[in-house]
């Protein structure tokens, strides 16, 4: 029985670790400025935890086999423990865990403690059951007023977020269902939710933030490679949660300007 346990525990450890090491399933390729740092921290954590995982399972398997009860076995060691050992492994784990945490704190600080830079492109993201809408302020750089009374989800576009078209600032606001952003320029998101909590999740950007009704949450990220990226909702928001997705298109600055101008023209 001890041997079977040893083999099974080791086998499970081996198989689990294999898929981690082979990266059969892994984080999608990072496409934002923060991705490299996050991935590096992930890899560090993963190596350290991997060592602990393998070591603990290997010793567990080894001990149950080695110290199995059999006729030739010696009597069990009579010991109530060892305080020196307890102190050593308490201190070591403490240093390891808290140290690991502090290593990641600088990335967290740069992502979340500072606001977006002055040149950032502002995009207002509104989550609702079950769609994402994106609003650009237009040439005046100001978002127009919205009114909950004007919300008409079935009409889509501007009406879906309840844009008050009588407001001067809203004349040049562009509301779309697909998010366009220029590459290599910081994007400042203003996250809102109309009904329940949603979560704006773009795996490739290593970006996730809940959109909470009653809050306008400012967050930022910088896309660094051109391409199409899927946006998912990562907070249970109702029966259509699984189909609440959108598309993030990272394009060159020129292409972005062209696209935005075309949207403005459509409005006129």
């Amino acid at each position: 029985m001890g041997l079977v346990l040893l083999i099974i525990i080791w086998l499970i450890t081996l198989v689990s670790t294999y898929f981690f090491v082979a990266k059969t399933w892994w984080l999608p390729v990072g496409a934002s400025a923060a991705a490299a740092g996050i991935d590096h921290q992930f890899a560090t954590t993963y190596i350290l935890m991997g060592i602990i995982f393998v070591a603990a399972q290997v010793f567990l398997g080894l001990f149950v086999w080695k110290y199995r009860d059999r006729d030739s076995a010696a009597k069990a060691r009579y010991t109530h423990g060892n305080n020196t050992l307890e102190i050593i492994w308490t201190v070591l784990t403490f240093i390891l865990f808290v140290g690991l945490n502090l290593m990641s704190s600088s990335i967290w600080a740069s992502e979340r403690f500072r606001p977006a830079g002055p040149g950032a492109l502002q995009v207002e993201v509104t989550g609702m059951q079950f769609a994402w809408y994106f609003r650009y302020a237009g040439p005046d750089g100001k978002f127009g007023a919205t009114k909950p009374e004007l919300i008409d989800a079935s009409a889509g576009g501007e009406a879906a977020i309840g844009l008050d078209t009588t407001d001067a600032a809203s004349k040049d606001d562009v509301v779309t269902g697909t998010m366009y952003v220029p590459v290599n320029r910081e994007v400042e998101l203003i996250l809102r939710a109309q009904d329940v909590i949603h979560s704006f999740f773009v795996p490739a950007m290593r970006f996730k933030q809940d959109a909470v009704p009653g809050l306008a949450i400012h967050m930022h990220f910088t896309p660094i490679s051109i391409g199409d990226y899927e946006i998912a909702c990562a907070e249970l928001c109702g029966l259509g949660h699984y189909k609440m997705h959108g598309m993030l298109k990272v394009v060159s600055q020129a292409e972005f300007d062209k696209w935005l101008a075309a949207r403005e023209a459509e409005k006129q």
Partner: protein
Amino acid sequence: MASFTTTVSISDPSTVLGRNDIPPPTRDGGGDDHFDYGSPDFPVRLRRARLGLAVGVTGIVMIFVSFTSAYLVRQGLPTLDPRTDTLVHDWLPVQLPRLLLINTVVLLISSVTMELARRQVAREATLAQVTSIPGVSLGREDKIPWLALTVVLGLSFLTGQWMAWRELAASGFYVATSPSSSFIYLLTGMHGLHLLGGVFALLAAGAASLLRRPVESRSIVLDVTGWYWHFMAFLWIYILCLLEFAR
């Protein structure tokens, strides 16, 4: 290393040292040394009931601590008004009904009568052990119905709270009018429910008295209800202060 001794006899367990030098069967290290199997004696039951009450009160305190934190957070946290796109506070300060002061006085008096009732029955319980000895008689004790008085005062307090609710509603503050009024109804209501539990316990003790149950059981019920009642009075003062000073 360890050694195993078989020389110590059971008749003298106190000389045996366990590992880590904990003297095994001592009064304070271990459990209680009353062999309270089956029906434990009065002091043990009283101590146990009081301990249970203290633990239970901790649970109730946690309920009101979370209400308090919800109160302070809800009061201090502005939310986004989508109409104006600004952060706004929607907390309307409420003028508490004057009646609450009268209710407070009633509850405090009831706490005093409760204490007198508690002491009355505690004395009875002590005397019961003496008077059970044949031939011993202590004459008639004064029999002021402190217990009944407490029940009446408790019910008056609850009625008063109800009237305070009516007064609030008359001045336009319903449960859903403003978070401030929601919390007033909530906190007074939850406190009232807990106090009502105390009233039921007192009624049970009163019924036990009428049914001529052993005075010890009644004494224990009254004792813990008494402490519970004082806690309720204290809790009410706390709630009142919260509502008045953190408007």
